[in-house]
């Protein structure tokens, strides 16, 4: 069988070859990443229940504040940026649990590390898939949560934009923590202790930008700082996550 998908000529060359030549064409890095990403998307849509958990959690946390503080929209509007960002941070933390755990368990990460492809690149693809499944839906849901807290509809585009940039940074920073926690049996609270302090700058700039957006002012300055954090996370976090995954496989 092994000869069947080789081009004509190579098979006969192999017969006389003294040693086995690895003649299969390696997958280009981009194809490998596309496969790693689409695999996670397909898997997630087969287990849709898991997808909804972070979103339901986000809505639930948002709902706690009117009950705990006051139903007055004027008071809720004042704390809305903080509520949205704390809820988003906790929801994304909760979702991190799904990022690597299954793949570590069944040996997929091991196969990725031994694939000859860059592990950094494959984990970047996985993290992007994770963001598409959790971060992006959170960003799209944030306006509804915001409006329930008395925020005007005119602030919606700004909130979505800020949330999109912020959740990218959160997913990537969280990937390092999730990968570090892989070697341990129980990691629930530790994952929070590892990731939350590192994501505080995202919270600070994200909440400030949202506050300005809700007030109808220009939020470009904090958004640019947030984008800078996201760019930094895109360049460094996958490398950190790959190192952490290799450590967990040792």
């Amino acid at each position, binding site marked *: 069988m*092994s000869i*069947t998908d080789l081009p004509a000529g190579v098979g006969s060359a192999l017969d006389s070859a003294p040693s*086995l030549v*690895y003649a299969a*064409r*390696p997958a280009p890095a981009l194809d490998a990443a596309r*496969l790693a990403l689409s695999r996670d998307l397909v898997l997630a849509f*087969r287990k849709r229940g898991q997808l909804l958990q972070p979103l339901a959690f986000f809505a639930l946390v948002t709902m706690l504040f009117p009950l705990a503080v006051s139903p007055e929209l004027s008071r809720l509007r004042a704390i809305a940026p903080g509520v949205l960002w704390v809820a988003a941070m906790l929801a994304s933390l909760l979702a991190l649990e799904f990022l690597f755990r299954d793949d570590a368990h*069944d040996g997929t990460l091991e196969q990725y590390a031994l694939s*000859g492809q860059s592990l950094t690149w494959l984990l970047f693809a996985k993290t992007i898939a994770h963001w598409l499944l959790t971060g992006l839906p959170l960003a799209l849901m944030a306006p509804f949560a915001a409006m329930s807290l008395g925020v005007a509809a005119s602030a919606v585009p700004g909130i979505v934009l800020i949330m999109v940039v912020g959740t990218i940074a959160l997913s990537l920073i969280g990937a390092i923590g999730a990968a570090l926690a892989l070697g341990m049996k129980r990691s629930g609270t530790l994952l929070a202790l590892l990731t939350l302090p590192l994501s505080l700058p995202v919270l600070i700039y994200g909440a400030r930008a949202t506050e300005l957006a809700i007030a109808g002012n220009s939020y470009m300055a904090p958004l640019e700082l947030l984008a800078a954090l996201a760019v930094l996370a895109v360049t460094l976090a996958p490398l950190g996550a790959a190192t952490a995954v290799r450590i967990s496989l040792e």
Partner: protein
Amino acid sequence: MNLRDSRAVTVNHLEAENLQLWRGDRHVLKGVEFGLGKGECLQVTGTNGAGKTTLLRTLCGLMVPEEGRVLCEGRDVRADLPAFHSSLMYLGHEAPLKADLTARENLHYWIGVRRRVAAAGLDAALARVDASAWCERLVRTLSAGQKRRVALAGLALMFAPLWLLDEPTTNLDADGQQVVGSLIAEQLARGGAIVVATHQQLPGAVRAARVLELAS
């Protein structure tokens, strides 16, 4: 396609040089040494906990020995791990399969990340392990032996010069064991090298060129 645009990797000679590895206080690998040529099979035996799996994971570069080196064609494999990795296939005792994908999808994603896979190649590999009949079923509905066969199909499909197999016959019935035996024989016949960790006898007519016994 020509061979020039592929990474033509060969494994003519694999050598382990005085591998020493500790896990905590436990001295797991105590100076393991062997050489392995093309078309040869090395069988690693030893009781549970003797370090068979650790040795395989050290050979493929997942674990780093405190002392000693693994050499491929006389060069330390750590000098260029990606190149070494693209020439090997490691199969642990758990098959790296997702329960919510079909057997065929699993192969498509798993091997596709490493090499270009044509649909015909995929079908041939599944037929090779007698999995054609149930390859469109979700892996969660398959038996342990069937999962093992899917992993073997991956092995056949990857076409790597070096195989590192950890207990490849676990959970397999007599037919399945025959499949393992013939896959191994084929790989050896075309000049591939195999390190297989098992305390059982190798299936089929395969005889290991060398047996390495690890003491616990």
